[in-house]
């Protein structure tokens, strides 16, 4: 009945960690913006999508001139950097145009504006880049190798290393540098931070730039294994936001933790759930092969409901009492 071997479990663990690392990178953007502006940057997923497509375009153009494998890897890195810079700029521009005039408006206004931005970006991308799914040609040999019966691809390793590296740098930046301190002060209280001589507008722009460029990297890593399409931002953004809520929104470490947790739940958790359903069916004498993969999206969503019911402030979040 329970045909889940250790190998399969470890395989799901690797897949889950890879997916979770990507979610974590995106969740950082949500959580940083929420920490400072107290609103959900709905367009975050779309910024990720635009970054991915820019990198794809640059990569494809450059690769047509490539002569050796080494050059392709260099071009891949160049395309990542270009995508990071351009989506960082995009994030800042969006903030200046669509969110900044609304900073003192009602709570609903920036949210609606962000939804508008995300629709514009999705549809513009469809017009510019087309509606077909696109995919990176792997810049390296992506043959999986076997480790104790688990197949690990270089993409898995690359994703985990790159995201860990970026997360450590970000954590260092926030905790140890002066700009990071200014950022923390701004998220604590904007007005007092301004009184202390912090340029709040600059800090907000910086937050958007960092979050958006991290999202671009996450999008590229995602598009290596899955496909890039103009609508990918919606679902992946939603899941990353849920990851941020699970970890405790506004909390950087929480976002990383929540992302990894959600990735694991979507792979191992979903498999366990599938086994449960199959065995329940077999008790009643029916045999089914599995449950539709489309239901995988339900994992994240039910986690959101669950966490909101049990601990709305998230795993690492502080309980904030609302005051008049």
């Amino acid at each position: 009945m329970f045909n889940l071997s250790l190998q399969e479990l470890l395989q799901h663990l690797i897949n889950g960690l890879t997916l979770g690392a990507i979610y974590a990178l995106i969740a950082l953007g949500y959580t940083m913006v929420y920490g400072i502006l107290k609103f959900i940057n709905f367009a975050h997923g779309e910024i990720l999508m635009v970054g991915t497509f820019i990198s794809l375009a640059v990569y494809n153009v450059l690769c047509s001139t490539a002569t050796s494998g080494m050059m392709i890897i260099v071009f891949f890195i160049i395309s990542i950097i270009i995508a990071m810079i351009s989506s960082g700029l995009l994030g800042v521009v969006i903030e200046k145009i669509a969110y900044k005039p609304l900073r003192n408006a009602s709570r609903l206004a920036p949210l609606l504006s962000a939804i508008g931005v995300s629709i514009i970006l999705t549809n513009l991308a469809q017009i510019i880049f087309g509606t077909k799914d696109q995919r990176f040609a792997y810049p390296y040999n992506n043959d999986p190798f076997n480790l104790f019966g688990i197949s690990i691809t270089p993409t898995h390793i690359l994703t985990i290393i790159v995201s860990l590296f970026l997360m450590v740098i970000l954590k260092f930046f926030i905790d140890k540098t002066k700009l990071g301190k200014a950022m923390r002060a701004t998220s604590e209280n904007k007005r007092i931070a301004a009184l202390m001589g912090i340029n709040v507008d600059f800090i907000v722009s910086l937050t958007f730039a960092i979050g958006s460029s991290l999202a671009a990297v996450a999008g590229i890593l995602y598009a290596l294994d899955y496909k890039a399409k103009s609508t990918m931002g919606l679902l992946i953004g939603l899941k990353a936001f849920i990851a941020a809520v699970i970890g405790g929104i506004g909390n950087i470490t929480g976002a990383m933790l929540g992302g990894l947790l959600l990735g694991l739940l979507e792979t191992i958790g979903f498999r366990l759930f599938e086994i449960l359903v199959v065995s329940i069916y077999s008790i009643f004498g029916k045999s089914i092969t599995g449950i539709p993969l489309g239901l995988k999206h339900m994992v994240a969503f039910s986690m959101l409901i669950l966490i909101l019911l049990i601990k709305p402030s998230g795993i690492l979040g502080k309980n904030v009492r609302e005051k008049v």
Partner: protein
Amino acid sequence: MLNLLIIVLIYICLFCILSLSLNLIAGYTGLLSLCHASFMSIGAYTTAIIMTKFNADFLLVLLLSGILASFFGIIIGLPTLRLKGDYLAIATLGFGEIVVNIIINWESLTRGARGIHDIPTAKIFNYRLMPKDAGILSKVIYFLLILIFLVLTYAFISKIIKSRFGRALEAIREDEIAAVSMGINITKYKVFSFAIGAFFAGIAGSLFSIYFLSISPGNFTFNISIMILCIVVLGGMGNNFASILGALIVVPAYYIPQLLNIPFIPPQFNQIIFGLILVLMMIFRPQGLLGRKKPDFERIIKRKSFFIRSR
């Protein structure tokens, strides 16, 4: 030409019902729901499935569709409405994705992505309506039917808004903490507002399926939710008449190029316009084209019944 006019009018009426119900949720209560098309799809699929399997009276099915949609509204609302509005937006977005996923994957009931295409025409009090292709008269009948429900919706929601219940909703929108301290059970009111909005969205979905006689998951995408939201925002949140005005502007702009088969406009163009409407309205005129009426407190206070109740 007349044909086209009636089709556009039917679309306008359907979207009026949808935007009025969203206006109750988003405009009056201040909750951002991004799954209005999903409530619509629940109503539409309930109608389609029951009508194809049983020979039931349409009005009964219609009521059932609305109730089922509002039941789902309560299910999604109860856990999320206790929290701030931002979470609700995300949760409703996720709920919308899940509804589409379930509809696509539950093949035995909903026939998956292909949709249901053999819905029988409606039977009202033993009088069976003709299908919409049977000539201009049948279209007019459908139009009148939908118009009746639009008027009912408008009357019902206007009545609610003017009552004690509606004032409680507006108090919640303005300031939740103040509303709590006035003794308003905000979770209860929010869930009620959500359930009523979902009910009318389900009704609109049911009317949709009975007019087109064929539905598929593609009819109820996220884009439709955004379109409804756009109508509400453009007209002015928290004003019923403004929602109708918004529908009169947005729906023809959306459907006439499509129905006339104008080829050079890409389908994404409309969506970009919607996005621009949302952003520009928020920046330059957040109260919408018409804005909202300020409640006349003097008149409310002068009303005798108010004093009796408050003692």
